[in-house]
């Protein structure tokens, strides 16, 4: 009973949040809505009994990826609302709507999956994390190592790509200063106070 309520709460909130990320004009709103949405999704994972996955979702996805986005934002002038010229909005809604309709119709049909058998059945009486650990480090060991390597490569790439000429400020364009109307050298650093 509670489970279905939880499902619907999470479902509605995720949908609204993701709609915000997609529709909003302001980058910040989009980002925060995205982060909140991801938290809701980790909720789903817990609902589905994939606890370890939920935690990973929270830590890695929401924590790391969103943090990365946040830092990334600093490079771009995220203050202004972005004006977007849409050539033919109707086409986008049409395609999206049609896609949604198709998925709904497709998935609402009763799936008679009689030939699906579990490759790696859940072992009863063992915590989810342990079960995942067992499967991850026996059957999926090679993909796991490769994933690790992948992350390493991504990290190095991220650093090199973004690292060049760090000192050159992207946003220090006259327009930004003029807007803030602060003389560059007019800020005295209040000495001594907190």
């Amino acid at each position, binding site marked *: 009973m509670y489970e279905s309520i939880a499902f619907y709460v999470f479902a509605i909130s995720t949908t609204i949040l*993701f709609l915000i990320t*997609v529709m909003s004009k302001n980058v910040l709103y*989009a980002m925060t809505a995205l982060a909140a949405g991801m938290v809701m999704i980790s909720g789903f994972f817990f609902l589905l009994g994939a606890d370890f996955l939920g935690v990973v979702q929270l830590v890695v996805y929401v924590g790391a990826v969103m943090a990365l986005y946040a830092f990334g934002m600093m490079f*771009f002038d995220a203050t202004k609302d972005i004006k*977007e010229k849409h050539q033919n909005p109707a086409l986008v809604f049409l395609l999206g709507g049609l896609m949604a309709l198709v998925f709904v119709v497709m*998935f609402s049909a009763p*799936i008679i999956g009689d030939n699906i058998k579990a490759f790696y059945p859940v072992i009863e009486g063992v915590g989810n994390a342990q079960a995942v650990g067992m499967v991850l480090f026996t059957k999926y060991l090679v993909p796991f190592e490769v994933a690790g390597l992948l992350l390493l490569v991504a990290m190095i790439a991220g650093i090199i790509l973004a690292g060049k000429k760090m000192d050159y400020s992207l946003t220090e364009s006259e327009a930004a200063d003029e807007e803030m109307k602060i003389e560059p050298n007019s800020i005295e650093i209040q000495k001594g106070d907190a």
Partner: protein
Amino acid sequence: MLEIGVNHYLILSGLLFSIGFMGVLRRKNLLMLFFATEVMLNAVNIAFAAIGNYYGDLSGQMFAFFVIAVAASEVAVGLGLLILLYKKYGSLDLDVISSMKG
């Protein structure tokens, strides 16, 4: 209300996926486009987890893990590229960047 079956999850992930898809199509700003791809990836994760759970199979979650790993690395590299793009073009708008005029 009624007991939540795998279909509910699949429909939900389908909806989220199409929202993300619409976002990708709609967005002119590359960063926002990245957010939309993130939405699509998460939608897929739900589906993986749901099917894994309803068929008592862990491989659903395994896929979810790897999806998250890939998504993370994708974001890292993607943002790096974005920064370079921003330096070059001064804006993240798709129409400005389209230099491959046919």
